[in-house]
């Protein structure tokens, strides 16, 4: 079982939420780009400020059940910021649940998954082993016929970044999903990555081992994210 106090899970959860919210705002969604951090006392704090949970457990409860009691004082000190954060979180949850808007779900899911993968690539021993074999390079993730492009980059010295839109360099590998439905299954962890290329669901070109490593890490990260389960 996962240890929720495990810094890998915490970092991945933070990074996934940050990436998701950034993508949400980029796509015109109402809300704000979130940043999360632990305070010295172990509180989970959202920036620009306001919403704060007493500890990681309470924060997880909020993510899992949609509500948990936040710290009152910071909320009262910055009510507007708190409102913006809560509105963003609610909007993200609604977007994931909205079966009518697969594109947004895929965009947020891919972005969040790759964000979480950044944390796993650097902190989880299995992921370090898998991705550590690869030399630097960028993998792009697109959906056939959609203006949707995400990327994950291995930088020198085992640093990792991810984003959407134009990749920071010519991609070393390209992963293209056949359609939104397929990409959506990938986001839900229901795509058989070994079989998918042969079934025509996914096309992978370029440095295939790089794409496989990133895919493996993203899959582990997604499976361990609390709100993804």
């Amino acid at each position, binding site marked *: 079982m996962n240890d929720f106090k495990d810094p890998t899970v915490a970092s991945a959860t933070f990074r996934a939420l940050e990436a998701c919210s950034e993508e949400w705002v980029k796509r015109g969604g109402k809300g704000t780009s979130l940043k999360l951090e632990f305070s010295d006392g172990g509180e989970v704090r959202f920036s620009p400020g306001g919403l704060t949970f007493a500890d990681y457990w309470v924060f997880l409860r909020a993510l899992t059940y949609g509500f948990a009691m936040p710290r009152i004082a910071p909320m009262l000190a910055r009510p507007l910021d708190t409102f913006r954060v809560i509105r963003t979180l609610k909007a993200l949850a609604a977007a994931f649940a909205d079966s009518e808007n697969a594109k947004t779900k895929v965009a947020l899911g891919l972005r969040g998954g790759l964000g979480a993968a950044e944390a796993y690539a650097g902190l989880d*021993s*299995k992921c370090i*082993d*898998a991705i550590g*074999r690869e030399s630097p*390079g960028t993998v792009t993730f697109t959906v056939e016929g959609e203006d949707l492009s995400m990327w994950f980059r291995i930088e020198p010295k085992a640093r990792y970044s991810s984003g959407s839109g134009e990749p920071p360099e*010519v*991609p*070393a*590998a390209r992963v293209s999903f056949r359609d939104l439905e397929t990409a959506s299954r990938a986001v839900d962890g229901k795509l*058989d*990555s*070994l*079989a*998918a*290329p*042969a*079934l*025509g669901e996914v*096309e*992978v*070109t*370029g*440095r*295939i*081992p790089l794409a*496989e*490593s990133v895919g*493996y890490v993203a899959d582990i990260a997604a499976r361990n994210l609390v709100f993804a389960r």
Partner: protein
Amino acid sequence: MTFSRTRSDELFLRATKVVPGGIYGHLAPAGGLPKVFPHYSESAEGCRFRDVDGNDWLDFMCGYGAILLGHVDPEIEEAADRQRRDGSVLNQPTARMVELAEAMVSRIDFAEWAVFAKNGSDVTTWAARVAREHTGRRFVLKAKGAYHGVDAWCDPGFGGRIPEDRAFVGEFQWNDLDGLRDLAKEHKDDVAAIVLTPYHHAAFGPSEMPAEGFWSGVEELCREKGIILVLDDVRAGSRLHEGGSHRLFGFTPDIACYSKALGNGYAISACVGREALRRGARDVFLTGSCWSDAVAMTVAMKCLEVARERNVVGRLEQLGSRLSTGLSEAGARHGFSFRLTGPPAMPFPWFDGDDNLYLLQQFCELCALEGVFFHPHHNWFLCGAHDDATIDQAVEVASVAFSRLTVEKG
């Protein structure tokens, strides 16, 4: 050719229901060109195979190296049929086991004993254990990216391992003798074996031949430190030199592992070693349900004999050189710097400047659409059934492919 893939796709879809991933390992479509390569084959003969949709292919993978003489070679099949009538796996080994061991010991200059299994992994892992038993040491050193099998100490996959599996495995860059010496120094008095292929034939990249002085340096280090030198000749064995690939590169291992070409498609692997390692070989348990298979052993003996009679090693060298020259010239005519890396008998194709393989994948896809099975991620294999005409046919197809290549992805 008129390309059809209905049956292959149907079979694959069925497979996904009952086989994890549909097809796994190095045959998984995801590791090749899933849009154009067939998922399933039906039959083969010589240097050609037919897929389940009836498409005929000129084969440059030869069962990923398992086919040395050609698919369904008549002499081999006749020998197999004869033995099959007497049985394959009996309660005791047959005389074939002794005869094959004698044949290998007499053919491989340093070998004093031989044992048999079914796959390359069976013997590479066992050889490392023999080295540990013999030396009483723990570490095994290997080249980064080198493939030595499916076991946890060396497999290229992601899952199913714990950190302890590789706690006593060290890696260095191929040809980096100083790196190897440093690694040996770091694990002072605790290095049991250095396990290496005769040249570096990693997937997804150009093959690297040993640099001047590399093998003599490795050998010297092993002798000086009492480290067992294990040659993994599973992929290259029988294709570069009939006495073992070490003969081509001028060094002598302590143990060598063979499989692939040894049985021309019948499952068998072998491990041979020096006299000094006989006790270790005796003490490390080795067995398998079908490892005494008399059919495979009969075939292996016949294969050694026929390969020598037909001078297969020399022939593959000549055919591989013809292919290399033909493809390089065809590429150059269309403005591409294309070359075959590694030994001519089992080359890895490479476009200079195409480190991400986009051009190579496109090139192999275009060739596949014309029925030539060139793999973009694995070294190719020539076999004794290729001839000048089939090489020229492949070059002709490749020439058209070069003319159609686009560079926008590069």
